[in-house]
């Protein structure tokens, strides 16, 4: 049981502030969609949660079932991974000169995940049988769809409680986008993962989202109450679809 809570977050690069007063709540076991077109701050938020860039102000916390909290706001990327937060980064960011299996194994670098390496590897191969077929192949030589599978599998190897997925649909053919989103939905069901997924593809994202946020110019323009609200609220259409 864990909940990701982001409050009043300001962050950016150098003197430039990208995120303005962002508050997001990802309840335990839910899949929350972070919707918005390119350049509105989705990846900046993802990087900030993973500790790759530091927040200027505001807080990022994990709330445990027993009421205790882990403050991630000024934690290092290593500490954040150790706390059970993994990310599938935008553009996949695989290690192209390493094999599929080596990429997966690197995902299990954190101490807690090393003990369960074999089980998690088995799970990744069951989730994506294609990865098992290609385990000795170099990651850089695979197709876009296979690379996205590998990126997702690699993130799961760290045995996360919270999974951040940044733009899983980018660069994929429509049929693969649909499969990939389906797999992420499956994951939240079968593993009880708490997922924050940044996506441009509104129609695909709402298939699996329990609720959603729309981010415009680094600010949360709309927060849905639940899945139905996200699909049907007229505000969504006006902000996101420009209608």
């Amino acid at each position, binding site marked *: 049981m864990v909940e990701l809570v982001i409050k009043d977050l300001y962050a950016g690069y150098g003197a430039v502030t990208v995120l303005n007063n962002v508050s997001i709540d990802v309840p335990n076991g839910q899949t929350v969609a972070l919707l918005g077109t390119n350049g509105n701050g989705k990846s900046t938020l993802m990087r900030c949660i993973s*500790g790759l860039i530091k927040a200027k102000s505001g807080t990022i916390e994990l709330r445990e079932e027993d009421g205790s909290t882990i403050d991630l706001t000024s934690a290092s990327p*290593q500490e954040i991974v150790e706390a059970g937060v993994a990310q599938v980064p935008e553009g996949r960011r695989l290690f192209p000169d390493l094999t599929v299996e080596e990429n997966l194994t690197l995902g299990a670098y954190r101490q807690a995940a090393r003990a369960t390496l074999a089980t998690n590897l088995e799970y990744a191969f069951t989730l994506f049988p294609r990865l098992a077929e290609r385990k000795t192949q170099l990651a850089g030589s695979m197709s876009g769809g296979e690379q996205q599978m590998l990126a997702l599998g690699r993130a799961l190897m760290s045995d996360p409680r919270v999974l951040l997925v940044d733009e899983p649909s980018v660069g994929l053919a429509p049929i693969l986008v649909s499969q990939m989103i389906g797999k992420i939905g499956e994951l939240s069901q079968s593993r009880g993962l708490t997922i924050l997924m940044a996506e441009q593809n509104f129609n695909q994202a709402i298939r699996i989202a329990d609720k959603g946020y729309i981010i415009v110019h680094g600010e949360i323009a709309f927060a849905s109450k639940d899945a139905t609200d996200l699909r049907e609220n007229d505000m969504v259409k006006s902000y996101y679809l420009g209608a």
Partner: protein
Amino acid sequence: MATFIDLLLNALVIGILLGGFYAALSIGLSITFGLLDVVNIAHPTILVLGAFIAYILNTSLGIDPILAGLIATPFFFVFGWLIYQVYYNAFEKSGSESLRGLAFFFGLLFIIEVGLIIQFGVDHRLVEAPYIGESWNIVIGEEIDVAIPFRLLVAFVVAAIATLAIQVYLTRTFFGRAVRAVAQDMMALRLMGVDPIRVKRIAFALGVATAGIGGALMIIVLPIEPSVGRLYIGNVFAIVVLGGLGSISGTLLAAVIIGIAESIVATFFGPSWSPAVSFGILLAVLALRPEGLFGKTAGAH
């Protein structure tokens, strides 16, 4: 005819053994330059420093040079750690490593070399061990016999063990895999919970630590003087590039190829041609197959 076969066989055997020796000199650079993209042009001179440490321990305490190399290894690890710390803070952190970093390692090369000259002068030094000077003669036929010098055989065996150990470490351990990944995508490594700077620091230190054993082999194979390192720059860079950047087994094979090529050229055309071999091969590789023998083509290099 018998003389020709005799010469060829001997050149081949010496070439293979020489290749093992070159592998021991190149393996550290294969890590620092091949895997970490740090152009440590001072590597051969750091090896010479290792050779002088083996020399001191051997002549003053009578310690076997190989053992002396092992004793020196942890000190070279610390030395490499410090070098990377300076390099990182002064250049890599601000992204100005390419040209200034090269100048830094050139400076390091001259500081070590001049330091050694001040301390030891420019005379050639050598070590003593039971296997130096001995050789093993194998008679194959009339007027054909192959001589295997023990000093080269020792170098070959030690190099093969070191190469294998490093290969296993880089492919079978979590840390080793992180070393192989670090130049490919530092941000992705951070997302795996790895501190890439720590990985680079330790891996660089490991690469420099090979100068303990490598330096000892250097002085076992040939008498040395402080500026001898410069002669090896072409050799070791040609080997690392030919082997394919970052490929440890490729480095071993490339070293043997260059060893054989040099030995054959030296036998049939005269030793003065042998320095041209590695530079010739280096140019040919860069022109024809820049990824090297075992280089990856899909990579981000």
